């Protein structure tokens, strides 16, 4: 399988009291396409930072990121926006849906920017919701849904644009076990049907059990692969 990501000597620090505080300390990594990958480790080891760098929403202090065969480390913000729009789907623990839009409108949110007509966007969004078992809730507002349903809407919004990779930061952290199970099944189904790559940062051992690759992080470094 070809590499989706190639990371070389990736370092990241933030400044605290005028002093650099290292978060990632020289990460070399290759992540495969179409796989379920989990990044695990205790809190504060740099999992979220690594995910941010993979999703091009932050810039490393040093090192290189190659994404889908393209060097993306120092792209301009406008170019990063384009990569994120076309190739990356992000899911967060807190969902971050737009409360004033319906489930269908939230799901279709990015599609017009990708050139979809209104009708095509509605159709694609509805198909995505069907895939996630949410078609019956299409006209509801996010606040009318349960936490698990909202998480699936956030997933639907991220995958409706058919990205190459979905990056998810603790996607099951706020969900009960039954809802978490359903969410994981939705991920598996998408991975099979769309060959979408999934990269999670998680503490959830159940989610980890489905991963093809598991990377353990400690103190800003990859400690090992499971």
């Amino acid at each position, binding site marked *: 399988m070809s590499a989706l990501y190639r990371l070389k000597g990736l370092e990241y620090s933030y400044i605290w009291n005028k002093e650099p505080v290292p978060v990632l300390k020289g990460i070399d990594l290759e992540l495969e396409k179409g796989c379920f990958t989990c990044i695990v480790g205790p809190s504060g080891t740099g999992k979220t*930072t690594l995910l*941010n760098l993979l*999703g091009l*929403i*932050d810039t490393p202090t040093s090192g290189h990121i190659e994404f889908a065969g393209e060097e993306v480390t120092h792209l301009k*913000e*406008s170019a990063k*926006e*384009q*990569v*994120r*729009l*076309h190739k*990356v*789907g*992000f899911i*967060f623990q*807190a969902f*971050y*849906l*737009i*409360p*004033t*839009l319906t489930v269908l409108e939230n799901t279709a*949110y*990015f599609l*017009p*920017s990708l050139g979809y007509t*209104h009708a095509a966007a509605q159709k694609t969004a509805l198909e995505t919701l069907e895939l996630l078992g949410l078609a019956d809730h299409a006209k509801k507002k996010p606040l009318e849904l349960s936490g698990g349903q909202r998480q699936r809407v*956030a997933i639907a*919004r*991220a995958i409706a*644009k058919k990205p190459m990779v979905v990056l998810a930061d603790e996607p099951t952290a706020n969900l009960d076990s039954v809802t978490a199970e359903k969410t994981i099944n939705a991920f598996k189904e998408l991975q099979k049907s769309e060959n979408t790559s999934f990269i999670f940062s998680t503490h959830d051992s159940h989610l980890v059990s489905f991963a093809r690759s598991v990377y353990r992080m400690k103190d800003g470094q990859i400690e090992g692969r499971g």
Partner: protein
Amino acid sequence: MIDLVKISWRNLFRNPRRTAASLCTVALGAAGLLIYQGFNTGVMNQYRENVIHGYYGYGQVFPADYYGKVHEQPWKKWFEHPDEVEAQIRSSSAVTQVFPRVSFYAFIVKGGITLGGKGEGVIPDRENSFFTEMNFISGTDLHNSDEIILGKGLAESVDAKVGDTITLLTQTVNGQLNGADLKVAGIFYTGKKVIDDAFYRVELKQAQALLDTNRVEMFALATKGVEAWPQVEHDIRKANAQLDPIPFEILDKNYYQNSVDFLNAQFSFIRSIILVIVAMGIFNVISVGLLERAGEVGALRANGEKRTRLFRIFLIENSLLGILGGFLGICLAVLINKTLLVKGVPMPPAPGITRQFWVFLEILPSHYIQALLLPMLATVVASVWPIVKLLKKSIPELLRST
């Protein structure tokens, strides 16, 4: 664009209480602007009517090269054939009445007191129907050719009361002394000391007899309204290029035009204060509202949403808020005008007026547009900084803010 407007519109209902607070701020600002501007226009229109119906008319017609200049023998410039000139003036369909006048200097003698003054000869029957704003503190206007009316200060100086007889001494246009005994018909008060202390009026024929001339110095005009003046001026100049029509706002520049300019400057200042209050009031609400959406903005941007598109959404959202607030403000102002202010606002006597008067709000179409657009502009301006501040944050920073 329709999608952006739709999203922005829906966002207004995200936090109804906050939106209501913002709408109230904008609406009160817009209503304040509209009421104040309507009041200002009402005051000016009242004052304008007083100026027009008090002395000047809508304008006056002078011989060419006469008005505003000092002449050694002014009567030589006066209209030699006033009837012809009057006919030329009346040829304008917008002129409704014509009031010929002459002005002259004379001594007013009563008992042992002699004082100099400046007066006018007028046709009372014509003038009484139009110049209804003369403030008589005793007696009435002229009704006969052997009568005179005096300014309050002048009457006090010569100790004249209504019914008393005084002697008016003047010089004819040929330089001979001439005089007449006249009965005091009324004593008036304009509030302008320079007029009240030295001004008098007699009948036009009496003035012409005293000056020994048939000439007329100028014609005051009644027209179909202020708006008709450009047509009147055009028609008169076309009828006779030697006529010089001058509108009331130039004739009374010191009082009327300066008052208009003064009140407009005052209004501009108060309008700025209202807009700053609206902007400051709304700035805080918008800032808090945007801060609450930082995580959502971060998530959208992480998924590829452009900063520019978000900026447009937020800007449209605040423009809608401004327009809606402006519209509500207009409704509020109209409601107040039709209920609480339906009888007008009681005002103390204005300059040149001796009695209290009522000002009615006069809201013009341009005022509605201003009341709609200016608070909207203030809202948009107040929102730009918080929006830019939010969108300048990095995505991780946005995601951490919630």
